[in-house]
């Protein structure tokens, strides 16, 4: 069983990396990029039967810092 964890910065949190990407896209001539937010994708290969509670706990205890980040879990068959 696999799970994908998407970690993104919360709304009010400044993302200098995203801003640098936005500038770089502008430099390549791509106009109209209003904003860029960069996040992380973490893929987990899990033992079958790993509970949703455990996956959620992994996110809360390590994969995301919930002071500044949100996470979304996507289970892949």
């Amino acid at each position: 069983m696999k799970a994908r964890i998407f970690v993104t910065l919360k709304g009010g949190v400044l993302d200098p990396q995203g801003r640098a990407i936005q500038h770089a896209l502008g430099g390549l001539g791509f106009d109209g990029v209003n904003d860029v937010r960069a996040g992380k994708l973490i893929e987990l290969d899990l033992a079958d039967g790993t509970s949703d509670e455990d996956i959620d706990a992994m996110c809360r205890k390590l994969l995301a810092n919930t002071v500044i980040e949100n996470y979304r879990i996507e289970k892949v068959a």
Partner: protein
Amino acid sequence: MKSAVIVFPGSNCDRDLAVAFEAATGAKPAMIWHRDTELPDDIDLIGVPGGFSYGDYLRSGAMAARSPVMQAVARAADRGAYVLGICNGFQVLTESGLLPGALLRNAGGHFVCRDVALTVENAQSAFTSRYEAGEAIRYPVAHHDGNYFADDTTLDRLEGEGRVALRYAENVNGSARNIAGILNEAGNVLGMMPHPERVIEAAHGATDGKRLFEGLVEGLLARA
């Protein structure tokens, strides 16, 4: 008086901090490896040094905060031992929940490595007792992720309880309310991005950091 410096893979200010502890206490600190699960029972002072623990993987300080030794540090802090986290050490202390908030990428996107002007906001703490309230000092900084973030409620509480120990006197990294160093509720844990251990002797070109370590030792002796 017993002191210790925690060493993670990727720490690079551990020896400087050990020199500062030894100069102030007169005894060499124990160097404690991150896999250790125990600290001496009667430990008085613990340093969490700067560097790039675990290569800053996942988030700065995230892996170090979950290492076995940090549970021992948390227990020692509960017992009242002084804990000083500098730079990466500050990031480790916020990641481990010993201090509130988080350290984000610098607002300007650049690594900042220079001396910065600071104001001592709280001169009553164990760490700052040898400074005057409002005193202007200079410490070096060297970090990429020093942009202090916490929600407004937390920031108001830190300010209201006198837990902002040090503030930047200039915009260094975009930190909320220019916060450079904060205390925990009990006042025995301090996290700060600037490096006092790099300005403790004349050969360093400045000695503004020396009083932080001297004050700590004075406080510990008074407590003993």
